[in-house]
């Protein structure tokens, strides 16, 4: 079996859960007054659940441009770190393929890509993952838009927490994929809790977490190299 198809098959589970999340997005979009084509366009061209949810929460006849763009960037800024961690997979690919397929590079591609040590052609594998998740994401959004009328807004609101569950699942998958990160992860988690309780902005929380986790991991790595 080629690695593209392996990626498609391996992402069936996470792709299905993404489809459920997309269905919730579609229903929530209708509840927020987003037009059918606008919601489909958001899923088709943005393709990032957390950003889409944040955007429709302030949807209206006119939108605060700077707020939407800055919050979209901040929420999606984890993509930068995911790209830096697994970006070497894209090296050596034809330019048009590389820059086309970067669009499909999401949390799920990253998580499964990190776990796929046995895969020879990780680029093809990640493309397979991205293709399936994108298809499921679009289908899920479409279904959500269709069934939105039959769902109460309170039900949609109560399901919005499923997005957090999905994110938690990805974090666990990443933790299980690679060992040796335990101390920096614990330190980062403590930092997040402290900053959250101090009531600072989301972006500062992320910066603090990334800084503490990154610096402590670097220190441990350099120390272990020094000790041989």
């Amino acid at each position, binding site marked *: 079996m080629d690695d593209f198809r392996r990626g498609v098959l391996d992402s069936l589970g996470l792709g*299905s859960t993404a489809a*459920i999340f997309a269905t919730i997005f579609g229903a929530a979009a209708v509840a927020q007054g987003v037009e059918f084509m606008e919601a489909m366009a958001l899923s088709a061209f943005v*393709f*990032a659940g957390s*950003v889409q949810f944040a955007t429709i929460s302030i*949807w209206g006849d*006119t*939108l*605060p*441009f700077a707020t*939407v*763009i800055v919050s*979209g960037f901040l929420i*999606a*800024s*984890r*993509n*930068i*770190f*995911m*790209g*830096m*961690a697994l*970006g*070497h997979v*894209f*090296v050596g690919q034809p330019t048009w393929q*590389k*820059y086309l397929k*970067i*669009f499909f590079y999401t949390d799920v591609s990253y998580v499964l890509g990190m776990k796929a040590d046995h895969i020879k052609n990780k680029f093809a594998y990640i493309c397979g993952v991205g293709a399936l998740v994108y298809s499921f994401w679009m289908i899920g959004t479409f279904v959500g838009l269709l069934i939105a009328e039959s769902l109460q807004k309170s*039900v949609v609101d*109560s*399901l919005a*927490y*499923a*997005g957090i*569950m*999905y*994110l*938690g*699942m990805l*974090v666990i998958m*990443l933790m299980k994929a*690679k060992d040796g*990160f335990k101390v920096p*992860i614990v330190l*980062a*988690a403590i930092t*997040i809790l402290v900053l*959250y309780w101090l009531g600072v902005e*989301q972006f500062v*929380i*992320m910066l603090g977490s*990334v800084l*503490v*986790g*990154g610096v402590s991991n*670097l220190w441990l790595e*350099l120390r272990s190299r020094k000790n041989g």
Partner: protein
Amino acid sequence: MVEPWIVLVALPIVLYFTRAIGVVLSSYVAEDSPYRSTLLILPICAMMAFFIPGALKGSLLEQAMLVVFLVVFWFTNNSIVSMVVGIGGLLAAKFLL
């Protein structure tokens, strides 16, 4: 304030930029660099920075469902079963309580 179509054009560009910039920057880090293992931990820290505050903002019932969901996923590694348990729990809480 702008019309929605402007956001529909601008937001995908911003998202694509966040995806592309990391991939471009990664080519400047050598495979055996001590920074490589640190790069692997940054996405986990970034995801946790959204997950933990988001989890804490939920109601007590939602948080309990989240714990059940995560425990099920931890032991089964099955995302579909875990999501069914999690979403089923959220809906059950909505209709039964």
